[in-house]
């Protein structure tokens, strides 16, 4: 009798778990699936970067792709960012659709002239003669214990430049839909992933699993509806915002969390609509505060009717204005967390 019950339980768990695994996905797998599908769909698409082929990707994002698609579509490059980014842009000039991976965006600084001067500006300078359908992707921002030179957040740097599109996925659905949209986009896209999010699982619908699932670039998503305060963020910051929203719920504060999904084009309209409802605004980012994304949101709010809708000023939650230290306690102290978001919301609402 007990054995049968155990057997039933076991069977139920099997069924339950397979149903669950069909509807959750890690960000890593979402990115992998997006690239796999787009490479299959359009023979002009190819991936190049360090360790993307035989190593299966430094962070295993491109795992299995080389075995499936071969040397022509998945290309291991030498450690020469300026060179291979330039080659990728040249290939895009000539009509291919490269995905150029930077092992982290810290290394993109070596190639930044090609990203800005060759990719971002060429369509404009050429009066539309030369479109540049390229995606630059890779992990951006702090990881874990990799210290100052490997932890910088480039959101503000790339979002600053006209001619680029800048996309910042958070969930697995974001990752898949936005990467597919970016690859199909005829413009240079800087696709800022986050290493810590790679291993995180998110629930995904069947629609997300289909091979034509695309999320439009430049449109934010309301991750959680609320009435008392708007918390706007992107990438890993959304995790802190959602955690904070949960904590705030227990003290009766209803927070609306906006996941920007893209930084350029920027969906200010989603912020406007939300603040018209909540009259309180907090921004969350992990990058440095000076001239960062929160600063841009503040400026846009000041210059619009959203200013009149606010019952208190925008408050920003950001990374600390220092290079990233190594020691774990220091590193933790250099980054924002859900606690900071809760504090900011409480200050905005003037509650203890």
């Amino acid at each position, binding site marked *: 009798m007990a054995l049968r019950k155990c057997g039933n339980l076991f069977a139920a768990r099997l069924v339950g778990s397979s149903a669950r695994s069909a509807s959750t996905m890690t960000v890593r797998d979402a990115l992998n699936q997006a690239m796999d599908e787009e490479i299959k769909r359009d023979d002009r698409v190819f991936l190049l970067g360090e360790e993307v082929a035989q190593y299966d990707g430094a962070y295993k994002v491109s795992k299995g792709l080389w075995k499936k698609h071969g040397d022509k579509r998945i290309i291991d490059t030498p450690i020469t960012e300026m060179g291979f980014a330039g080659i*990728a842009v040249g290939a895009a000039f*000539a009509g291919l659709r490269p995905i150029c991976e930077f092992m982290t965006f810290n290394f993109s600084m070596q190639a930044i002239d090609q990203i800005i001067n060759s990719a971002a500006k060429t369509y404009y300078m050429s009066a539309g003669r030369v479109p540049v359908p390229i995606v630059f992707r890779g992990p951006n921002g702090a990881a874990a214990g990799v210290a100052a030179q490997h932890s910088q957040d480039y959101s503000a740097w790339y979002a600053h430049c006209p001619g680029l599109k800048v996309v910042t996925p958070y969930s697995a659905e974001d990752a898949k839909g936005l990467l597919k949209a970016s690859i199909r986009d005829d413009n240079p896209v800087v696709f800022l992933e986050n290493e810590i999010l790679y291993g995180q699982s998110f629930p995904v619908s069947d629609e997300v699993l289909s091979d034509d699932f695309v999320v439009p670039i430049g449109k934010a998503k309301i991750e959680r509806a609320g009435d008392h305060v708007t918390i706007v963020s992107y990438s890993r910051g959304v995790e802190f915002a959602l955690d904070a929203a949960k904590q705030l719920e227990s003290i009766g504060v209803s927070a609306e969390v906006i996941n920007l999904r893209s930084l350029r084009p920027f969906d200010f309209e989603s912020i406007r609509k939300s603040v018209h409802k909540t009259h309180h605004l907090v921004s969350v980012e992990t990058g440095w505060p000076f001239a960062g994304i929160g600063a841009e949101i503040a400026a846009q709010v000041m210059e619009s009717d959203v200013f009149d809708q606010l019952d208190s000023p925008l408050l920003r939650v950001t990374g600390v204005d220092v290079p990233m230290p190594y020691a774990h306690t220091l590193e933790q102290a250099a980054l924002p967390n859900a606690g900071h978001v809760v504090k900011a919301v409480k200050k905005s609402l003037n509650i203890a």
Partner: protein
Amino acid sequence: MTKFLSLVHLERIWTQTMALFARQIQSLRGPAALATQQVRLASTEVSFHTKPCKLHKLDSGPATSVTLNKEDALKYYRDMQVIRRMESAAGNLYKEKKIRGFCHLYSGQEACAVGMKAAMTDGDAVITAYRCHGWTWLLGATVTEVLAELTGRMAGNVHGKGGSMHMYTKNFYGGNGIVGAQQPLGAGVALAMKYREQKNVCITLYGDGAANQGQLFEATNMAKLWDLPVLFVCENNGFGMGTAVERSSASTEYYTRGDYVPGIWVDGMDILAVREATKWAKEYCDSGKGPLMMEMATYRYHGHSMSDPGTSYRTRDEIQEVRKTRDPITGFKDRIITSSLATEEELKAIDKEVRKEVDEALKIATTDGVLPPEALYVDLYHNTEAQAVRGATIDETIVQPYKTSADLLKAIGRA
């Protein structure tokens, strides 16, 4: 080494023999001309001798005996004259302050562009730096398009959106303002050619100054690793802006700087040598042997750009000497006249025609209108809905009235 020496030895015997039959006009032009003898072949084709190419990691190179027919002779002469006149007109426009910003003139280097173009086949591509006006014209733009772009008018190649350094045509990827950026870009175009299994090459030009850029070595490494059909061509005109090659480069043998990539040094003032070498290089690349590096020994008469008189780091005598003894157009003119491929009258007629073409272009370049203010906002994104573009103040933020130059031009009747 020995092969090269014996070639020179043979050359000397040949030229001494031919000297007996050389016309006086050639002897007046100096010893260089004696090395470029010609032999009349049947009908309107003549054979010429060119200076041999120096070779790096190659057992054989381009032929030094070159044939030229009348049709090509007249075409090459005309092409070089158009570039010379067009650049001259640009220089004058700049002095009249009708061109702003940067203006880098190609005068003196015509044989490089015209010679390479003569060896190109359909589907080949070119990318260069900012000394690009001559190339832009050669690769399909009209003289009007080039000059009007310099003066920022609607009739310009990119309607005034780009200017001197940013002009484009089919298979011509500019016009690039950042020194060296075009080096990996060109390798990338070649990658696309290989990807599509085309039998083409991408000619990737850079100067002696850019020859020291790190990204050249990065691009060369990948080009060799992946057998990309790219010709890295150094147009060595002796100066990187105001710095003579000996002061910028630990090695001035630019055709050897590819190290494991074979290279050819070419007399860049001799359009036939350039054409022959480029033909040879193309065959090399097309046969799947990978990239090649070429060095064109050439010279620019003007300064680095129009803001450089070009005489603080070299003497006027040096410039005059090159004009007198090595000018690519005069040298070619002498050859085709003395070999009876062309007559003085035919060439004079071409000169007149070229002058007319450039003058007409000048008229448009100085009188055409400029793009309306809405043009500021066009060409931001391809195939994307109209964007709101932040203006100088928040109140001047507008949604793009037109998304592309093409749309705007159509709307104002300038399609």
